[in-house]
């Protein structure tokens, strides 16, 4: 067997099955926060690296990669609007 070992999150997400819904289930609720600080000091914790910064230091939310764990909800209950994706959408684990 040839080993194929990914260490980075982006590659690992490629192993998973997702069904994206057009409407984001994650939103930035507090528009006036320092988005760079929010990502670097808090949302770095997301195991799917959903929250990144663009070159203008604005937060980009790649909600279609979300593993629906809820960690960002726990660390940013005020800043992040969090709901479950539409039924049947989002991640589908085949092993779990």
């Amino acid at each position, binding site marked *: *067997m*040839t*080993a*194929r*070992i*990914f*260490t980075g*999150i982006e590659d*690992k*997400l490629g*192993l*998973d099955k997702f*069904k994206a819904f057009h409407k984001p289930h994650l939103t930035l609720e507090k528009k006036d926060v320092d988005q760079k600080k929010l990502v670097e000091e*808090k949302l*770095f*914790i*997301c*195991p*799917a*690296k959903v929250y990144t910064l663009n070159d203008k230091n604005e937060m980009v939310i790649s909600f279609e990669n979300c*593993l*629906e*764990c*809820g*960690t960002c*909800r*726990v*660390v940013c*209950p005020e800043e992040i609007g969090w*709901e*479950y*994706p*539409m*039924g*049947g959408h*989002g*991640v*589908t*684990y*085949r*092993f*779990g």
Partner: protein
Amino acid sequence: MSEDKFDVIIVGGGPAGLAAAFVLAKAGKQVIVLERGEYCGSKNVFGGILFTGILEKLIPDYLKDAPLERNVTRRGFSLLTPTGELGGGFKFDKFNTAPFNNSFTTLRAKFDNWFAGKAEEAGAMIITGATVDDFLYDTDGKIKGVKARMDDGDILGDVVILADGVNSLLAKKIKLHKELDPKYTIVAVKEIIQLTEEKVADRFHLNGNEGAALEYFGCAAKGAVGAGFVYTNKDTISIGLGASIKSLMEHKLNPNDALEYFKNHPAIAPLIRGGEQREYSAHLIPDGGYDHISKLFTDNVLVAGDAAGFVNNTLFHEGTNLAMQSGVSAAETVIEAGTRKDFSAASLSVYKTKLEESFVLRDLKQFRKTTDALDANPQLFEKYPKMLEELVSELFTPDGEPKWDKEMKLMGKLLKQESPWGLIKTALAMRRVII
């Protein structure tokens, strides 16, 4: 669906919700399970060992067709040090015959789906792809059902059982549960690594369908308060790592980086060598224990499983059986309340009594200090494993020095790094985790 009224609405098709549905359907109740995933299990992740003590009471012949991976005969508990491990554990051949120690490695996508099939056979209605967002209220403000995000999603019922897992947005909506506290919540990440059946058996010293469950403490999470696990499935390995969200934040550590550290640790890397990754997943574990469980009932509503915070996250790592037992107790409570035709909080309060008398709340009470003890002793996750490695490795390196002299020298070294009081304090904290 608004024309029909159900006796019981269950939100969430995991072990808690499905156990409740099974019991209620068997008792002839009109019960509906609403599950947001494409199928039951499709959103669920655990280590994991399925503890089947409660399942067996519900479905005595479950071994016939339940999708179980291996029966766990070997359990290991290791303290990871910077370059190795100090380990212990047990392996008993008697666990190879029924009831197999009630412990089986399992994959949730398969198991929950199977369990849903059993609940359906018993007469429960299971609707998948249905995310419940809110409750329905009657004019007096009493809960009379739920609102699912789909066509005809207003569903009426006498009672709602919230079995919607650790993030229970619904229990929070009606203030039964506070927002999760980072100190009392673990985030876990996990990978499935494909090997072959033969490799799994050889690598973990297993015969036939035997399985191994190995837990790793100490510096598994790169210094954060956390632990790693390696479980053998038939031809795959479940490898993962869970750490307190608070501690990861303090260490500025992403869970995947902690997992990569664990996977590359010299004691762990050989276990998964040559394997192919098949899945990457993430999930929370409620870790507050007895003092942080939710309110368990209110008028027309009960809370079961992870939604209530029922996980015994000590050495035992039990969640699935607490979920199933609480589902069963919730179902029995509803059946009894049904004979009284009274679903008020007062009538449903026997649920708490049932759980207080069962292993669910008794175990959680016994270990109520575990999380605080670990949180207060971060030295267990970096400093102590390092000290231990130094002591043991020097003691076991014969170099011509008499043992007595060596032991005295090491004792002096140890006491330079830690006071006797510090050692005693840590030993006491450890007791909280084990007994």
